[in-house]
């Protein structure tokens, strides 16, 4: 369990730029990228008032459960799923094997437009994802620098103010 997933500034900026473009093109309210363990990577659009951390966790849980359903039905995965509400809708799609793209939209857009724009943006996102993966060795080295210097005092002081 000691392995790490890391994202650097360049890839985060690249993801954010893709999402900003997608928000405009798909006429979406907000777009999020989260990883399959429930960590938020980027949030774009009208995100105020949304508990983004909780949203990331629930989206990952829901996606994992959907994957379980897919396997039960003999499918490897359901790469796209959709939740329709009275005012807001949520379009969920998998990017590669470990990121989840969430597009929230209302009556200003439509499912067809969102699907089309997400499809077009997929390759760009997958390219950034491959860049994230290719930097895993670099991430490991940098993590060495952070964790290698942690002292017992650092760890003890973590809890002083929180509890």
């Amino acid at each position, binding site marked *: 369990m000691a392995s790490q*997933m890391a*994202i650097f500034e360049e890839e*985060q900026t690249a993801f954010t730029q893709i999402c900003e473009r997608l928000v405009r093109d798909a006429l979406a309210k907000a777009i999020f990228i989260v990883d399959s363990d429930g*960590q938020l990577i980027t949030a774009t659009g009208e995100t105020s008032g949304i508990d983004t951390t*909780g949203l990331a966790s629930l989206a990952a849980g829901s996606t994992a459960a959907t994957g379980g359903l897919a396997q039960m039905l003999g499918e490897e995965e359901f790469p796209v799923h959709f939740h329709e509400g009275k005012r807001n809708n949520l379009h969920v799609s998998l990017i590669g094997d470990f990121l989840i793209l969430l597009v929230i939209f209302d009556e200003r857009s439509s499912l067809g437009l969102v699907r089309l724009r997400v499809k077009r943006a997929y390759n760009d996102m997958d390219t950034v994802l491959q860049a994230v993966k290719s930097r895993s060795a670099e991430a490991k080295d940098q993590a060495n620098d952070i964790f290698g210097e*942690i002292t017992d005092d650092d760890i003890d002081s*973590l*809890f*002083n103010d*929180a509890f």
Partner: protein
Amino acid sequence: MSFINYAQREIILKIVYYGPGLCGKTTNIKFIYSGTNPDARGKLISLETKQERTLFFDFLPLSLPAIRGFKTRLHLYSVPGQLFYSASRKLIMKGADGVIFVADSQRARKEANIISMEDLKENLLAYGYDIDKIPFVIQYNKRDLPTAMPVDELREDLNAESKYPEFEACAVAPDGPGVFETLKSVVKMILMELKKTK
């Protein structure tokens, strides 16, 4: 699997509370929520049935001070304890950095504790983890109940070789003895483990 975001300069650790049904996993998380500085805690999400049983998971994000310039965030999850929720329990284990096993001290739950521990080991193995190699602590909860077994007996059932750190707790009490100690212990183990593997 810890997550490091260099752009945001933060480290996220996922900690999972595991244990038999109604042993107090959600109570632990709710106590941590109530005992944490409001600035340091996020929104508590609890997906429960009408019978107060966790259906999918509880989730509580906590923010700790920066360590070496990186904000430390804890994501606490509790899994559903009942046997029939095995599928969702397994999903929540994915990517966990550390596990807290909450045992129910009541004698009537002796068997349930043992079954849950076996189930945990199986679920960890499914993701390629070995319980002896991950940050793992045991909490003997409900120590205040008259039906509580002696700690020696619980240890014999769950920690016979005393390999894992253990804590006595009463998560439902107003001052929740043992609750924060258990959490601190597993966080410390995770960070020490990350340091050791470097």
